[in-house]
């Protein structure tokens, strides 16, 4: 009599089968991302409807009906975008009034900026040790290249302009406002009364006054009170004000991060015999800054957009150049939207990259084990 097994069993595993069609591939992605619930289904349909309403017209205006070549505004018929100014004016939108024969200095500066930024933003790059030193030296190199000196012809800062000016003012502000903000945040939590008092009054004063008011004070009032011999470059004045303004906000962002660190961490630092600065550097700040990343990048992006305010000292950043072209009699009334679109595009690229980088940084520094 054949002996049957009491239970049924398999000798080998079944081969893996593909997940159901509805949870993979395009269909799966659509299901999980666009139609995961009634609400998102409604929103998806509504968004598609809005896009269908807006996009064809926009594309038709911006590309299909657009005029790409021409010498003057009247070469542009009124329907469709007018891009004919681009080839003549794009350099001014980028370099402002910087002398044409010196454009290479800006270009070199930008090319050198790439590795300088890379060594600051990413680890695991080759020669990182030297790279970091290079990043530290970069501001000096850039300043000499842009302004002149050491045999290079001097270029006044009122010739700066276009998107290059936004980049310079924004980068200087970003690089300086973080350390100043950290110091202010620590100062505000300090037990030393003078330091604390100074930090609190500085932060509250700056946050209590609109940026444009501070700029007017720096630009209009300051020269009236300084003797005529003392001249501080207008652009430097503006960069100082923008930096201080961002620092005050930065300080509060970082203070939020500091407050999220449990007391045990401070005590752990003391227990290990670390001094104040050591425990800050090694234990507290790395954690606090990590928490504050979204807020910090928020402030950075805000600062970068505030650089458009240089128009009030008569410098023409990319937005200023856009307005300038709009007032040119040859282009009057033809390029209002196009020029602003171009400026918006430039800003979007930079601000969006900043926000993506901060997401990436958050993931990289994430030490929780989920």
């Amino acid at each position, binding site marked *: 009599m054949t002996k049957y097994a009491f239970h049924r069993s398999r000798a080998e595993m079944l081969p893996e089968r593909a997940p159901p069609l509805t949870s993979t591939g395009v269909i799966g992605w659509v299901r999980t991302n666009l139609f995961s619930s009634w609400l998102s289904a409604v929103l998806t349909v509504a968004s598609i409807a809005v896009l269908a309403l807006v996009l064809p017209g926009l594309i038709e205006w911006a590309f299909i009906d657009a005029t790409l070549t021409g010498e003057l505004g009247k070469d542009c018929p009124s329907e469709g975008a007018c891009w004919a100014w681009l080839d003549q004016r794009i350099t001014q939108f980028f370099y402002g009034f910087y002398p044409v024969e010196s454009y290479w200095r800006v270009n070199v500066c930008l090319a050198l900026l790439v590795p300088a930024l890379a060594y600051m933003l990413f680890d695991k790059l080759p020669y990182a040790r030297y790279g970091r030193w290079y990043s530290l030296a970069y501001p000096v190199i850039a300043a000499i290249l842009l302004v002149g000196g050491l045999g290079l012809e001097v270029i006044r800062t009122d010739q700066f302009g276009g998107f290059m000016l936004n980049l310079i003012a924004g980068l200087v502000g970003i690089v300086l406002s973080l350390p100043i903000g950290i110091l202010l945040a620590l100062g505000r939590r300090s037990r030393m009364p003078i330091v604390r008092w100074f930090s609190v009054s500085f932060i509250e004063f700056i946050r209590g006054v609109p940026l444009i008011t501070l700029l007017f004070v720096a630009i*209009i009032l300051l020269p009236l009170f300084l003797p005529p011999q003392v001249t501080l470059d207008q652009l430097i004045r503006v960069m100082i004000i923008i930096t201080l303004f961002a620092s005050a906000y930065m300080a509060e962002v970082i203070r939020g991060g500091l407050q999220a660190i449990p007391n045990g961490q401070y005590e752990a630092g003391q227990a290990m015999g670390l001094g104040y600065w050591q425990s800050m550097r090694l234990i507290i700040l790395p954690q606090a800054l990590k928490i504050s990343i979204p807020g910090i990048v928020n402030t950075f992006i805000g600062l970068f957009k505030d650089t458009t305010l240089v128009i009030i000292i008569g410098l023409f950043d990319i937005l200023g150049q856009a307005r300038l072209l709009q007032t040119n009699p040859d282009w*009057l009334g033809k390029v209002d939207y196009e020029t602003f679109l171009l400026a918006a595009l430039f800003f979007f690229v930079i601000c969006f990259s900043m926000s993506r980088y901060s997401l990436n940084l958050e993931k990289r520094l994430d030490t929780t084990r989920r």
Partner: protein
Amino acid sequence: MSFRKIAGAIAVAGALVAGGAMSGQAATLDDVKAAGTLKCGINTGLPGFAYTDDAGNWTGFDVAYCRAMAAAVLGDANAISFVNLTGKTRFPALASGEIDVLSRNTTWTFSRDVDLGFTFIGVSYYDGQGFIGRTALGIGSATELDGASVCIQTGTTTELNLADFFRVNGISYEPVPIETNAEARAAYEAERCDVYTTDASGLAATRTTFEDPSQHMVFPEIVSKEPLGPLVRQGDDQWADIARWTLNALITAEELGVTQANVAEMANGTDHPEINRMLGSEGSLGEMLGLDAQWAVRAIAAEGNYAEIFDRYIGKDSPLALGRGLNALYTDGGILYSPPFR
């Protein structure tokens, strides 16, 4: 506190500081010569009056005056550092000495001349506030605008003039406040208002940008006087004289037929005594100003006489195509009139 009062206070403070620092040596001319450039305050961009060309050079009606003055004083029409000023920063910049002369479509008013401590050196452009409306409205005069909605730029004298005009005529209106000129134009085109008001030069410029200009008309009423002209700090009469007579030289050049093309030739001497005095082949007017004999020759050679400058930037040779109107010479039915060179 209105901006005007603040500006006044700042300008007075500036004048005091400047007066304290520069008492006894108010010679702007020497400073300009020492610096080698004329610091000229201009607009941050106004169609026809101050804008940039494709090479990024400043050009326009107001800019041309700067060039004429730089040529007269320094011998080089390009020896200028342009300082771009907004409506808010222009007066403090002049008061604090940041600029030597302001050529920025600035209306000559009593309080600016007297209270702010500036000297207006003349009128380079007679403007006035007007209205533009659709011909489809079927009215021919601004006095028939009862109940109309009016697009205006806020915070300007145009707003006050508008209120005055409607009050005087006993008619009502509905203001549609707008921030910038470009927005106002867009709002008017989108029919958010029946009429749009700003300076007549601006209206004419705006009209050229409409798809069909013939559907829009500028009403004949001009509701304010806006004499625009260059100005300098009060207290340096020699510098004010140079600025004033540079403008007068451009106007007189038109009157006497001196142009950019023929000025060099005429400078060698003509049979017209006033031309000879102005261009320095007779008399010593240049030395009286503290300049050399050829100052007016260079000023006219820079961008041409008044008519040439007008036509090139805002007049018949420009897209704006403004008519001369009040800005024609007194001999041609306008009110442009320069005192004699004698």
